């Protein structure tokens, strides 16, 4: 699919994040386009989770803006922020299902809160969502009774309950076996194609990046910002930046400052 660059859903402008004196990234700007799957990559500790948390309105940046339909979500009132939140879905690393509720109640929650559907319709929607993530029949299980991969899928079902415009995923396939991870990738692609949902995904899995990403953003800790942007295949082919090639070729960059002991 070709992404229409002209149609941004979310515009990130000159974003800076810091914890105390520790600047995580500085002056980061990019756009998330309608219907695309944007993958954010970068070494551990470069600020991907921090960026995501700001984008979903959970944390405030040090400076900069995030525009959604012309509204800067970093500075609006809680009330308007909640409007934004109803248009996005978030999948946390562990699924973050409410452990005191069943799977059904988890998905039911946003539907009850934000719609005036009757209970029968809500039930049917829940069944449909569970079918989409391949968990049909599990509505009365509690989260503790599901495996890690199932929890993630249930989390996706909950995140998709209100058919959000944008879905955010942190560490999409961390801690999952390759088969489950591949299933999750298929689910992402299918959802994106069928519903046109825009997705912002943080992941480390090279294979899944090639499979799902329309565009990749690479953050770097030293550069404190974006060091590369583009289609994954192009990045792999054309990149000259050692930080980029090392990620896509899975090699540790040679650090001239690092001396290892060696012996004849």
């Amino acid at each position: 699919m070709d992404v229409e660059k002209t149609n941004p859903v979310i515009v990130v402008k000159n974003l800076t994040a810091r914890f105390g004196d520790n600047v995580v990234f500085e002056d980061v700007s990019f756009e998330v386009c309608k219907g695309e799957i944007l993958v954010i990559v970068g070494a551990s500790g470069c600020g991907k989770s921090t960026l995501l948390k700001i984008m979903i309105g959970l944390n405030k940046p040090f400076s900069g803006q995030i525009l959604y339909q012309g509204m800067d979500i970093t500075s609006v009132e809680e009330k308007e922020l909640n409007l934004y939140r109803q248009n996005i879905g978030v999948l946390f690393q562990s699924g973050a299902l409410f452990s005191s509720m069943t799977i059904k109640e988890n998905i039911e929650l946003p539907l009850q809160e934000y719609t005036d559907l009757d209970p029968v319709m809500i039930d049917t929607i829940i069944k449909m969502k569970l079918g989409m993530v391949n968990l049909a029949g599990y509505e009365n299980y509690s989260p503790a009774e599901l495996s890690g991969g199932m929890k993630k899928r249930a989390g996706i079902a909950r995140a998709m309950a209100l058919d959000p415009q944008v879905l955010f995923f942190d560490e999409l396939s961390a801690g999952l076996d390759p088969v489950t991870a591949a299933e999750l990738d298929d689910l992402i692609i299918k959802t994106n194609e069928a519903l046109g949902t825009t997705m912002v995904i943080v992941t480390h899995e090279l294979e899944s990046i090639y499979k799902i990403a329309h565009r990749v953003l690479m953050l770097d800790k030293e550069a404190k910002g974006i060091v590369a942007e583009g289609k994954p295949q192009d990045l792999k082919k054309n990149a000259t930046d050692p930080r980029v090639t090392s990620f896509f070729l899975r090699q540790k960059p040679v650090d001239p400052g690092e001396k290892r002991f060696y012996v004849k």
Partner: protein
Amino acid sequence: MTTTPAQKKCPEYYEIDAELEDLNLTLYLVGEFGLKNLTAFERDIRQEISRQKLNSVTIDFSKVCYLDSAAALALLQMEKDTNYQEIKFLLVNLSDESKGIFSVIHENALMQRSFRDLPDKDSFIRKIGQSSSDIAGDFAKFITFIGELIVAMAYMIRHPETLRGKDVFFYVQRAGVDGLPIVALIGALIGLIIAFMSYLQLKMIGANIYVPALVSFAMIKELGPIMTAILVAGRSGSSFAAEIGTMVVNEEVDALHTMGFDPIRFLAVPKVLATIIVVPILTVYADFFGIFGGMIIGVTSLDLTIKTYISQSIKSIQVFDIITSLIKAGVFAALIAAVGCQKGFQVRSGAQDVGKFTTSAVVTAIFLIVVTDSIFAIMFYYIK
């Protein structure tokens, strides 16, 4: 058993053979070199080296059958030390495995200064100052939380349909119904103890008849509310803190935020409401059992009939006391639940935090209960 190369006849000891030729020392290492014998072989090698003036030291690895990273590190440190003394230090005849072990040691890592120093151990005075200012900070946070809670409660009163009735019911069950047996038991025992103690004193002046009044007065005015509140703080305040704290750790609270739910309205309001409903009822229950406990003594030791005991008790009870006792119970309930929830939200990460704030929830709640009770005592005295 199949033998891997490492296990191949590796002797469980080590030997160092020295050979000296014109100030050039060669040490042949034989056997196993690792964490287990590091101190010993390091001492031996250093002894060999320091025995006389040398030009070079050569360490021969050809007969080493086991080497671990700690042993390799020790050898590298000896290399540094000998280099200081301008003695050449050579490692020769290493197997590929040994070379591999040397290659995992990064010199930069050894020299790297810690990014952050541990905070200095504070002096006693400083600690006192710190914890006093922490208490002030905690109090400010608690007041802010109470404010948010009141806003959320007000919202709930204006939009009753947003209240999660199922949750309220659940906590009424947990904090109230499940707490009945222990409240009853403790209530009865306290009543019994007061009756017995006052009987011991009052019988000396022949004033046994006042025991029922004393028991019911003490239970209803002070002991019933305060004891019930302390029990609820231990049972429910702690569990609220632990529950919310665990939800914070599991990112469930973050998830609530991103779904546009106010965690206070969603998690704290049902708990606070349920506790406010339940504690006054539990208090009445405790009062009854306290009087019942006193009656056991009254009937068995004081030669009072059940009828006189009850009529004496009722005579001493005033409606005002019952009402104030219920008001107190309600305020204690709100404090316990609010403190429990607030401490839960203060958890940042990890199991340790959950434990810390759960404890703090109980301690703070009990402290606040006692302080509020004294304020009430004075206030009611003047109102009356």
